[in-house]
């Protein structure tokens, strides 16, 4: 049952591994890998952007938009871009442990193909894909015993769209087992570290999209996709100085993703900044005949345009006047975090077009977003029942929440769905009637409702002996209003530079020190308490 470290080895390094990925390396990345009813995503135009000197000096520093700009100007090639990231993987992956598998051979082949014929807005861009997305011909385990050895016959819609847009998969991102908590082995041994504190694995890197976050923060991939059921995109983004967008339910397809909770699972990017998050989401978004949740929805707005800052007379302004709701608990808790939030609010308030208003929660907010969060557990039990019957040990350290789902009756699950309806009206007719965007103190309420969330960095604060660990914040909006979130994020990032900061490389002594320390291990109870 032990998965060992073989899935994290650099697959390109051995002939046997190369043979194992032969299908992926000899068949071009095309929609041929997609599900039978694959529908191409919408056309996406990536604008030219000013490329920072740091990105010119080191390709792995570049944002996605900067990398596209450099490729378009032929200032670099897809091969150079991919090789730069693979070199960092070779150097630092033993410390970061961001990947469940690295598909180096396939990435190199795809880069050469992209250099021969550049096609698609993401042509040549190295991407990390969370390991719960189906990848044709590449083992997809959701980092679990349950799916050990599972090789999907097709790509998840999201993966197929990224590849069809020219994106190059450099590896499968490590994750909390079955998308539960921070990335660990299925038995609970911590794997992936926060890229900002590689010497200290006790610092939370965020989960369950831990590997995608660490890969982008550590510059092992240019961008990434994760999934979110209970904060798993915006959480790791906040922890690792990234910008994560959890779209509205249905905006992006979740076909071909190993489920955690049907009504709560979302797919979206963990990216370097708001523009990158918009570009990735624009590629992912739109109807998918394989996922009825994506059909019959409002048209996808121009997300890329929404993520471009607007200036009037040289001053950054909001694209549209926007009222930003501040809930009563936003300025409570850790003093350092509160100070950063105050500065964040002051910065927002100084941007023309932004208006801050205090909002209050409905009386039953705590109950309906707290205890009622457990309602989702039945949804994770049902699709996994055959595996539970086969052997509950397959679930390793994550077992408890799968069993808890059996102990909510059908009528209680129905009550939970009624509570969702009640909460939706309280949010849309109440809180969001007084503002366009609502600051969040946790991701769960809008995950329950399927409303969009944007996580973005707002500074750094000390954690334990670590003087500077990223701090982020989360904004939420009404259904299918990702563009509103991006507009606010674009303006904020145009007047701040937190999103441009990158962690220092792990030093060899730090790596050695870490390997000498006892790795943390999560207990089943800790996993159940923190599970998405």
């Amino acid at each position, binding site marked *: 049952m032990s998965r060992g470290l073989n899935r994290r080895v650099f697959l390109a390094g051995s002939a046997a591994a190369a043979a194992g990925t032969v299908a992926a390396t000899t068949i071009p990345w095309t929609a041929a890998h997609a599900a039978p009813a694959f529908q191409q995503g919408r056309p996406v135009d990536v604008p030219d952007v000013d490329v920072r000197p740091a990105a010119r000096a080191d390709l792995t520093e570049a944002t996605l938009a900067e990398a596209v700009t450099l490729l378009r100007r032929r200032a670099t090639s897809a091969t150079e871009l991919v090789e730069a990231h693979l070199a960092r993987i070779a150097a630092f992956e033993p410390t970061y442990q961001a990947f469940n598998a690295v598909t180096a051979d396939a990435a190199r082949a795809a880069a050469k193909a992209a250099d021969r014929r550049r096609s698609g807005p993401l042509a040549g861009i190295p991407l990390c894909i969370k390991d719960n997305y189906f990848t044709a011909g590449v083992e997809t385990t959701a980092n679990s015993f349950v799916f050990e050895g599972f090789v999907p016959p097709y790509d998840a819609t999201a993966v197929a769209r990224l590849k069809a847009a020219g994106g190059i998969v450099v590896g499968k991102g490590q994750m909390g087992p079955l998308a539960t908590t921070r990335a660990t082995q299925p038995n609970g041994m911590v794997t992936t570290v926060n890229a900002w504190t590689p010497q200290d694995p006790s610092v939370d890197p965020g989960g369950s999209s831990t590997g995608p976050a660490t890969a982008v923060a550590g510059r092992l991939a240019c961008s990434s996709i994760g999934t979110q059921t209970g904060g798993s995109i915006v959480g790791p983004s906040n922890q690792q100085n990234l910008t994560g967008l959890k779209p509205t339910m249905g905006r992006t397809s979740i076909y071909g993703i190993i489920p955690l909770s049907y009504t709560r699972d979302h797919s979206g990017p963990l990216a370097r900044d708001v523009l990158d998050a918009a570009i990735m989401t624009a590629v992912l978004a739109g109807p998918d005949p394989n996922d009825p949740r994506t059909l019959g929805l409002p048209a996808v707005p121009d997300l890329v345009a929404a993520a471009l800052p607007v200036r009037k007379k040289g001053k950054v302004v909001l694209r549209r006047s926007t009222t930003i709701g501040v809930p009563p608990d936003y300025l409570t808790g850790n003093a350092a975090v509160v100070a950063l939030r105050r500065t964040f609010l002051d910065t927002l308030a100084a941007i023309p077009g932004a208006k801050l208003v205090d909002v209050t929660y409905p009386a039953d907010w705590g109950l309906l977003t707290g205890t009622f969060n457990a309602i989702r557990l039945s949804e994770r039990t049902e699709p996994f029942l055959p595996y539970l019957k086969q052997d509950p040990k397959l679930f390793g350290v994550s077992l408890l929440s799968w069993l808890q789902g059996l102990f909510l009756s059908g009528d209680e699950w129905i009550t939970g769905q009624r509570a969702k*309806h009640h909460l939706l009206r309280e949010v849309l007719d109440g809180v969001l009637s007084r503002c366009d965007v609502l600051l969040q103190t946790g991701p769960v309420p809008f995950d329950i409702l399927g409303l969009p969330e944007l996580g973005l960095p707002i500074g750094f604060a000390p954690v334990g002996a670590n003087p500077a660990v990223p701090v982020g914040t989360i904004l939420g909006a009404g259904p299918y209003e990702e563009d509103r979130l991006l507009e606010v994020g674009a303006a904020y990032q145009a007047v701040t530079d937190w999103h441009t900061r990158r962690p220092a490389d792990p030093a060899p002594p730090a790596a050695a020190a870490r390997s000498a320390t006892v790795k943390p291990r999560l207990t089943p109870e800790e996993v159940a308490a923190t599970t998405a």
Partner: protein
Amino acid sequence: MAVGPSSLSTEQLNAFIVARLAISGIDFNLLPADPDPATGVPTQTQVLSSLRSFLLANPAAVNGWRPSADAALGQQLAPPLEYPSITEAWTGKADGR
């Protein structure tokens, strides 16, 4: 006298848990009696303890909520929505904010 989970003994809850697992076809005895570092799976004792806590806290809290204190009128309120945001779109309410 109102009944509730707190009136149940540990033995009764344990019996219910093992029976519920069996009804779904899950063999409680496949779980280890002692810690198993290789899989990290919880022991039988840990499973029983966790599920007892869950049973004591969650179902009763869910069952204690209704959209209205009036039982008859409450039936007419808040029909169940699996996908609240999608329902907003499918009912034409999601556009034009």
